């Protein structure tokens, strides 16, 4: 049986992993490669790195970091931030990443999804989205871009369907409302999107304890879930999360 994936997220700022709340107040957590190895050995099923300063500084993603991670870990990982064209995607893939996550870029230029899928296969193209609760959209959730700074007027569920049709192989739903709160995932939003598309959906934002993952897998039909603060702080380990999942009957990868 296919396992539900637990994916640590590492936000990289100037070559260091940081963690902020609602995209603000960042604290230094450590070296990206060391942390990647630690989580990989500890049972992470996959990793995701966001080069969160690349876009703002209008520079390409840190390829040296991608290469170093690819040499150090033997599990899949995705990279996002600082991707502005197909050539950027190709550099990231050749450096050894399995997946490229596009977010604001895809809102500005949706055809990058189909172009990326045609060039590298749809399994390589991940659509990241940052929806926020909003009365302006039919689903009740509106897509924001540039780290919650801009509202787009786009409906989150419609955008997920369109991105899957364009060739996105996976959709990461990062709730702006839940992000950094550690109060649990946005279940309603995650479930709506998981039911609307036929590609895997990754829940993101709000994980604070292992039970939150059990809930999002069992009740919101997520295929994978992103964890950050709850493990970066040392409060929980991946092994504890897996154990709780396993005991709750959620399929988890237990041998690593």
């Amino acid at each position: 049986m296919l396992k539900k994936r637990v994916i640590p997220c590492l936000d990289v700022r100037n070559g260091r992993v940081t963690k902020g709340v609602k995209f603000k107040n960042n604290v230094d957590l450590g070296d990206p490669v060391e942390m990647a190895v630690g989580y990989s050995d500890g049972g992470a099923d996959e990793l995701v790195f966001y080069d969160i300063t690349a876009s703002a500084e209008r520079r390409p993603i840190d390829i040296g970091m991608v290469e170093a991670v690819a040499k150090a870990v033997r599990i899949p990982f995705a990279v996002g931030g600082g991707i502005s064209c197909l050539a950027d995607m190709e550099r990231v893939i050749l450096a050894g990443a399995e997946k490229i996550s596009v977010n604001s870029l895809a809102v500005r230029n949706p055809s990058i999804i189909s172009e990326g899928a045609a060039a590298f296969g749809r399994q390589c193209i991940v659509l990241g989205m940052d929806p926020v609760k909003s009365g302006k959209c039919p689903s009740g959730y509106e897509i924001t871009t540039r780290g919650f700074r801009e509202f787009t007027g786009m409906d989150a569920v419609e955008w997920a369907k369109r991105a899957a049709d364009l060739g996105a192989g996976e959709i990461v739903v990062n709730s702006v409302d839940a992000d950094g709160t550690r109060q649990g995932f946005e279940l309603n939003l995650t479930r709506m999107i998981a039911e609307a598309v036929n590609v895997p959906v990754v829940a993101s934002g709000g994980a604070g304890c292992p039970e939150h993952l059990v809930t999002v897998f069992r009740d919101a039909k997520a295929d994978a879930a992103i964890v950050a603060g709850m493990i970066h702080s040392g409060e929980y380990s991946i092994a504890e999360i897996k154990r709780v999942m396993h005991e709750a009957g959620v399929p988890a990868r237990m041998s690593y």
Partner: protein
Amino acid sequence: MIAIVDYKAGNLTSVKNAFDAIGADTVVTRDPDAILRAERVVFPGVGAAKSAMENLGSLGLVDVVRRAAESKPFLGICLGMQILFEHTEEDGGVDLLGILPGRVRRFPEGADKVPQIGWNDVVADDPREFVKSGEEYYFVHSYYVEKNPCTVAVSSYAGLEFTAAVRRGDLFATQFHPEKSGKLGLQLLRAFLNTPADGRRQSC
């Protein structure tokens, strides 16, 4: 020396990195002589079957891969496993190398999301097999090889059992990605490296 065949079917960085991690001496190449001279050959592949077959043809590698698969320790990975079989439904139907008996089909829609992406457990009848029964490996695929006489391990998805790994003598192939399957994947690559060449190609 181990040749990793580069036929423009996906990125080979991860495969090379994984062999580097276990200290194996590899070269990524599309040179027919280098492939035929190598002691062992790794045949990866990600992407579409049709363009992969066309690339093998235009690079003059169809017979080279066939000879390598029939004469030396050989490891096919993902699309590199599927291409060893006879025919695939992908791209409206494509004839493959036909080194192994069997067909490649698309996962049915409806039961589960397609592609399958993630860690799935495999079941092998023989506990000594190069794939460890009951353990999890990393899969990314929309098409699968039907069970066939060379199947040594199966996995389940979309309501059916499919071929997770095949073996015929020192010819190995996996649907999953050992290079991305953590320590178990490295164990498998080591087992491949340590398998003596048997030079025989009997039927499964």
